């Protein structure tokens, strides 16, 4: 019976290794042209367009779905999408994310609904860019950008805080805290019925 755990006989491999390690005995002295043929690839490549990128002066765009730095998104009026549920932290296999939730109040609202992420940290020394956090996010608050230039000179600089991760304010967006749009409820926000900027 085939037991997948029993190693198969490795005779072939051993033979190949022995052959590779054997001293080269029969060098054909007269095969100059054969050796010249070996440079053919080198010769032809001289006339091709080089693949080398002059990084950092020159950059090539990544694939669209490249897993880069994270971003915490906002609704059109600037309210944060993050509800501080910690599902990203839960999903993270590298334990790179720390979230602490807190209560929204009528006076101080950061996100629609009751809860927002008060503390949000991603530790890029730990992050393995697997994207499980993004799949876990119930509000699409957390997505990944294509930004990959994350090297820095100290450990603490690689722990990104909420303000480092939040998406920039676009036109019409207002920096939270501010109330929800007039007459809208958190359900409208979750269902994507929010268009236009804040009227706060």
């Amino acid at each position, binding site marked *: 019976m085939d037991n997948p755990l029993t190693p198969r006989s490795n005779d072939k491999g051993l033979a190949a290794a022995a052959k590779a390690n054997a001293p080269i005995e029969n060098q054909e002295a007269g095969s100059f042209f054969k050796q010249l043929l070996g440079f053919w690839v080198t010769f032809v490549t001289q006339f091709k367009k080089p693949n080398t990128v002059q990084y950092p002066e020159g950059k090539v765009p990544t694939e669209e779905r490249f897993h880069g730095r994270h971003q915490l998104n906002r609704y059109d009026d600037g309210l944060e999408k993050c509800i501080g549920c910690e599902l990203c*932290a839960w999903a993270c296999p590298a334990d790179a994310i720390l979230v602490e*939730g807190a209560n929204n109040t009528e006076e101080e609202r950061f996100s629609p609904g009751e809860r927002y992420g008060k503390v949000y940290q991603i530790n890029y020394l730990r992050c393995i860019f697997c994207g499980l956090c993004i799949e876990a996010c119930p509000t699409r608050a957390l997505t990944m950008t294509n930004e990959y230039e994350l090297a820095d000179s100290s450990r603490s600089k690689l722990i990104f805080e909420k303000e480092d991760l939040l998406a920039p304010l676009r036109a019409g967006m207002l920096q939270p805290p501010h109330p929800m749009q007039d007459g809208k409820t958190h359900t409208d926000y979750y269902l994507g019925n929010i268009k236009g900027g804040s009227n706060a």
Partner: protein
Amino acid sequence: MTPEQLTEVEMITVVIDGFEVTVPKGTLVIRAAEKLGIQIPRFCDHPLLSPAGACRQCLVDIEINGRAFPKPQASCTIPVENNMIVKTQLTSPVADKAQKGIMELLLINHPLDCPVCDKGGECPLQNQAMSNGRPESRYEGVKRTFDKPISISSQVLLDRERCVLCARCTRFSDEIAGDPFITLNERGALQQVGIYESDPFESYYSGNTVQICPVGALTGASYRFRARPFDLVSVDSACEHCASGCAMRTDIRRGKTLRRLAGEDASVNEEWNCDKGRWAFKYLSSRERVATPMIRGADGELHEASWPEAIAAAAAGLKGKRAGVLVGGRATLEDAYGYSKFARVALGTNDIDFRSRPHSAEETSFLASVAVNATTTYKDIDKADQVVLLGFEPEDESPIVFLRIFKQVKKRGLVVTSDAPFASRGSTKLKAKLITSISDVTGLTEKSVVIVGERLSETAGALSAAVELVNKSGAKLAWIPRRAGERGALEAGAIANLLPGGRPISETSARVDIQTAWSVPALPITPGRTTNEILEALNLVSDDVSALDAVVIGGLDPADISSQALSQLLNSFVVSLEISHSSVTAIADVVLPVAAVVEKSGTFLDWEGRSRAFDKGITDALTRSDVRILSMIADELGAPIELPTVSATRREIAAVGKWDGAKAEFTKITLTSKSPTGDKLNLSSWRQLLDLGSLQLGEANLAGTSRKAAAHISSSRAEKLGVTYGQEVRISSELGSIKLPVVISQMSDDTIWVPRNSQGSQVIASLGFVSGQVTVVKA
């Protein structure tokens, strides 16, 4: 269940999923299945509550004597019977389908807001929906919604749309706590948990409803959105708030306590605790912690110092001086043992007392001859034919003792007699017979339990009368102090007339025991003094023979003892071992920071003397336990006590053991009842469970449910004073006065009751005494 009970009870054998199991008659099918390790999903079922059959999640197929029930039955309401064959979801496709159907129905109106729900991650509904639910819902309609959340008290929030109407909370409030403030309102799809409009959910036990809620319908305001279960490190701990001795679970996130839950201990707190134990843990962050040792300089200000400097300064101030030790009521057994040994070995004195409250010499004698090494337990309350409460208000002063008594009152009509001056809420729930004098207690037998509270010492002769009552009838006596550390401090000998293990200091063989254990040539034999006497001695001019020059003070608030206690400390050298800055550290000469309960290991002895050991919760805390610091000072004084760690102290306490000889004779005094002179009234008071206690600081949600301070007087007295319900009276002594609204109760005309330490009613600070005569006028 004990073996002898098993033989009394008829046993029944049933077959569940093909396995036979034998259980006592009356066991519910769901429990019998548990015994086999078969888990039937459930929401409303709780082993300590009466069966309700409300959620229908536990449906199983049942067949008795070959006849099957036509439909699946709720296994949480049906007791086992002979020849019963049960098929759970594991073996019966019908039961499985029924359970899945119920789950689907429950989820129709349950919102899918798990990401914002505090229960997410530890939710029985989430878990059982995964294990026993359909993967997909077929419901396409609109879910029923309610406004959310509504606060049913300042600390409990209700999300009605999450509720699965299991009635666990309402049954708990009604059956266990006796506070039926919440109920199921409306019927059908609109059925919801609600409060009576006029009565908010102000139960001392409301936190338990949050803990037993199987969904996220009831959540605690203080823990709201703070963490997820996987963030938390849970440690088993013991409660530091009273002498009930609840097992607790403390949940810590990144070095901070985020919540505390009731632990399980069937012989003590079952699965319950009180709101103070559950929510009062922010006292650490409410006042500024003492961060480093401090020494008072020549400029009169405290200056930060290194440990060696501070220890040296403390030792220099104590060396060769006549010093006393005030332990405070919250020390662990190990810390109290440290203070006890420190006083005897390093300071050579018996002037040590753990009581930081009104007390008497009669009580000192009572503690050494009756209370120490006493063996009355919760079990004795369970079996008692009568419980007598003297100077003890269980609901306010030891809430789990209250639950135990209430359980027996509810179950079998246990007779309760209380000397409370009026029918308090607790006495009303216990249907207590109120007596005005200890001599009115009747019908005591050997099975009765007489519970003596710490307040009984405030009436001269009352403790003697209680002891006589017990001696005459053979009833059991229990001394239940209010604070968690008192029983442990008593056993550790942190009192003038006792050495560790309850050894009377007057007994030569007891002294020899301890001398040998401690390897010291001699122990001081001059009789020690009580807290009040120590404070008075500190205030004497130093050439007086009985004067004291210095004092070592543990966690203690002078305002708990008397109004002048703090000023009595001003002229002496004070070493303060404190957690946070307080009135004592403000006047102390050397301040040494110590660890709070969550930062150290230790042991509390509950009122039974049962050991409640706990481990360090915050493992990387740098603070040290009192005993370690005392050991360092003793080393510096050249009289080492050799207790470098808590575990070394534990070993030494175990090695010293308990005194097996006779206890000292109790010096009785006669009870004299004082009737008030003129138009004055007798003042009576106790501390309410939720009040201005320093361990409750910083928790506004908890304070929101404390009972409002009010003065209780009789109706004829109210008439005489010309006040009606809610109008204010001024209660005054020579020192000062307090103003409170009145509540009219059935009570003696000569008595007025006020809360001792509540908002607007701080008796010791305002009136200067706790038992005495006061003038009451309409304000």
